[in-house]
Each structure stands twice: as structure tokens, then as C-alpha cells.
């Protein structure tokens, strides 16, 4: 292109710009007239930028609470000082379960971001499985604080098998030929989240009781019945089998203290006519009984 054309283009553009300026500046309400300008910057809400990317593994503790530590990071365009630390929280939730909410403390401040450590207290009876973690933060804006929440992280709660019971079966005073002799119940307290029978059964592996003085004599495991003591074990109980697992149909719920108790009942269907001596099922004798879940 010739130089003359370029000069012409520049002259035209300049003429348009200068002409436009004067045109916009003229009139009763010129656009370019000096005026007072007020700029009000609105509060920019905080934004959660980092949460656990893989499921948080939770191993519950029998009979007590477990503190679970989770982290998240927030950025506030108005600066990290604009974040309301007291409002930071993490909530673990699962359908049918009570939400577990934990507060947070500052772990790190970097520029306009803060990383929080949140401690959520889980109960020993909280259900196994995937829980949703919801992180929440607010800023200090008034009257309406800006906020953000994120529920993309999960926690995987493990399965806790934990039962408390008295290990000694009380045979009481038994007399040969007696029938349907109920024994004292074995009270079982669930200090975990495993539910019987929803998650699995409670079996009893019995073994023949052996005479201490005369080992040739024994009380067969098959004379014992076992079952949930909410019913008549002597009628409804399952007959035990030597060295085999038998489902007792016992129910053991999970829950807070007082609501987490089951009861295993025993009954001797017929006391055999054996000699008067001690009959045992022990580790030393190689024939202890087992509760299996």
C-alpha cells in the first residue's frame, strides 16, 4: 500500500476520533462532561477451592467416639481476613443417620486463601458405608454474609464388629432327667456398627462338655438350645451341634448406650443321666465354645 493511503487512513481515523469527541462533549448533557463518579465494589463471596479428592477412610472406635480430621481450602477475593473462621464447618451425612458436624481451625493462610482443619466426631454406631462430607464457609460481610459450600467429598466408614458379653455360661443347678431347663441369659452389648441379623448372623459353635474327673462322660452339645431370649428359648431355640456353627436368630441392634443390647438365651432340653462331676468346655480342654459374627 502506498504511503499516501496510510496517511489518508490515519487522517480519517483521527478526524473521526476528534469529531466524535467534540460531538459527545457538546449538548445539554454531554457524555464526556466532568462528573462525580462513585464506584461501589460489592462483596465477593468466598469460594471453596480444595477438598479431599479421594474418600476419607474412617475407622470407628468401639464404645466411644472417633475424631476424624478433614481439610478444605477457601479463597476470598476480598482477602483471607474477610473469612469468618467461626462459621467454617464440615458435616458428615448419610441417609437415615444423624448428621455429624465438626468445627474447624486455621491450618494455613496463603495470600487470599485459608486452609482449615476440621474435626468431626463420629460415633461407634454410625453406619458403615459412604458418607457425604459438606464443607461450609462464610465471610464477614454485613448484613448478609457471602458463603459457599461443597459436598463433593466422601468418607468411607468401615465396619466395626465389637460385642461385649460375659464369657462364662452359667449352667446353674441342673439335675439329671430335667427337661427344658432355661439358663441365665448372655447379655450382648453392641459397641460397633455391625447389626445382627441385618449385616450377618450370630452363630454359636458349641462343643460337648467333658467330665473333668471322668472324661469318658460328657454332656452333648446337642442337648443345648440357643436363641434370642426375647422368646422362649426352650421352645424356639435352635439345637446346638458339636463343633458346628448354628444360627441363633439373635437380634443385636446398633445405637447409643441402652439401645444396643441383645440377649442370647440357652436352654437344656434334657439333662442327661451322667455322674456327678464337673463338666467343662475350656481352652485347656480343647473344647471351648465360640460366638461367631
Amino acid at each position, binding site marked *: 500500500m502506498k504511503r499516501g493511503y496510510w496517511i489518508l487512513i490515519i487522517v480519517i481515523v483521527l478526524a473521526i476520533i476528534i469529531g466524535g469527541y467534540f460531538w459527545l462533549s457538546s449538548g445539554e448533557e454531554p457524555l464526556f462532561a466532568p462528573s462525580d463518579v462513585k464506584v461501589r465494589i460489592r462483596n465477593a463471596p468466598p469460594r471453596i477451592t480444595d477438598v479431599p479428592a479421594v474418600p476419607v477412610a474412617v475407622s470407628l472406635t468401639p*464404645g466411644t467416639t472417633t475424631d476424624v480430621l478433614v481439610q478444605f481450602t477457601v479463597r476470598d477475593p476480598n482477602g483471607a481476613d474477610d473469612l469468618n473462621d467461626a462459621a467454617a464447618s464440615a458435616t458428615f451425612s448419610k441417609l437415615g443417620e444423624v448428621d455429624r458436624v465438626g468445627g474447624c481451625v486455621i491450618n494455613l493462610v496463603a495470600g487470599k486463601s485459608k486452609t482449615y482443619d476440621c474435626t468431626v466426631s463420629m460415633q461407634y454406631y454410625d453406619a458403615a*458405608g459412604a458418607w457425604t462430607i459438606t464443607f461450609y464457609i462464610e465471610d464477614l460481610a454485613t448484613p448478609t454474609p457471602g458463603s459457599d459450600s461443597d459436598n463433593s467429598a466422601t468418607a468411607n466408614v468401615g465396619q466395626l464388629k465389637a460385642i461385649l458379653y460375659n*464369657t462364662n455360661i452359667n449352667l446353674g443347678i441342673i439335675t439329671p432327667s430335667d427337661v427344658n431347663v432355661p439358663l441365665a441369659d448372655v447379655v450382648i452389648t453392641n459397641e460397633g456398627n455391625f447389626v445382627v441379623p441385618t449385616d450377618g448372623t450370630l452363630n454359636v459353635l458349641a462343643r460337648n462338655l467333658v467330665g473333668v474327673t471322668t472324661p469318658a462322660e460328657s454332656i452333648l452339645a446337642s442337648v443345648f438350645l440357643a436363641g434370642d431370649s426375647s422368646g422362649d428359648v426352650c421352645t424356639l431355640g435352635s439345637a446346638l451341634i458339636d463343633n458346628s456353627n448354628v444360627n441363633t436368630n439373635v437380634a443385636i441392634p446398633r445405637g447409643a448406650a441402652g439401645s444396643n443390647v441383645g440377649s442370647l438365651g440357652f436352654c437344656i432340653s434334657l439333662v442327661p443321666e451322667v455322674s456327678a462331676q464337673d463338666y467343662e468346655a475350656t481352652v485347656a480342654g480343647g473344647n471351648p465354645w465360640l460366638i461367631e459374627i
Partner: protein
Amino acid sequence: MVNRNLKIGLLVFAVLLVNTSFVFALAVNSPYYNSNPLKVYAGQEKEIVFDIYNCPSMSDSCDKEDIVATVTLEEGNEIAEITSGSEYNLDFGSSGKIRMGVSIPSDAAMNDKYLIRMAVQSIPEGAGVRMGIKYNVEFPVVVTDAANVPDDYVPNTVSKGEKTNYMLLIVILVFVILILIIVLAIYKIISGKDKFK
């Protein structure tokens, strides 16, 4: 006959008097269970940790006794082994860790399934009729694509990614193009001047 029966009754009663009650508090936690299988990929090697406890709450409902627990792998020997030993001495209120190594054959096919069953057992000493506990820790192992195998949690966080401000990007782009045009125009003018010289 009456005397004989009485003798049995008295003897059994006497045994009950010397037997001591013992409230057992062994517990085990498993990250995997029947409805939560372990997902692995062919050739993967992985360590699984199970927590084992003896009344960590130290509540009065437990007897203050130490426990010896034995651990055996009842099923899944072809892919798993217990690496932390078979016997665990748990003082009252303490806990331990059972470590299991899982090694999946490199030629395992997609959707291949294995079953791992580990027994955690303890039986208290003593006379009378003793009833121990046996926890069956059982879970399936499913071979899947490596992309479907979740990472183990480490207490770090990963950025979800900043939201991009596309409007700002467009303004910057237009601004850069304008500058380029101006620079090009100036260059042309200057080069035109040089030709006249």
C-alpha cells in the same frame, strides 16, 4: 437316686461359685465388607490395614483384662497374606493393626472375583463353659479397570480447579489483537518511509 441328683446339683453349684465372670471386649474394624468390596486392577499390590481393639473406651463395662487374639486367613490365600503375624497381645485399653498384603495376578481378567475371609479369634482361659469370640472379616475382591480403582486417602487436598472468567479472556484477546494491528500499521508506515529515502 435323689442323693445322686443332689450331689450333681451341689457340685455344679460349687463350680459356679469359683468361676469368675469375664466380660470380653475384643473388636475389629474392617474397611471392606460384603457390601463394600475391594476394587483392584490386574497386577496391583496393596496393603490393607485392620484395626483391632481391647476395650479402647476403657469403660467399666469391660473387664480390665489383657487379651491374646489369633488371626488366620481362612479364604483368599491365593491373593492375600497376613504380613503382621498371627498373634496379637492386646493390653486392656490398647489397639493393634493387622496388616494384609493383597497381590492380584497380572493376568487376572476384568470382573474376576475373589473372596477373602479372615478370622479374628480369642478365647478366655478359665474353668466352666467358656465362650470365646470369633469375628469373621469377609469381603469380596473385584478386578476392575485401573481407572475405577479409587486411590487411598491421604490427608492432603487437591484443587478442584479455578472457575475460568471467559469474559476477561475475550477482552484480553481483543486488546492483544488491536495492539498487533497498530504495531503492524506503524511498521508499514515506517517501512514506507524507508522506501522513499
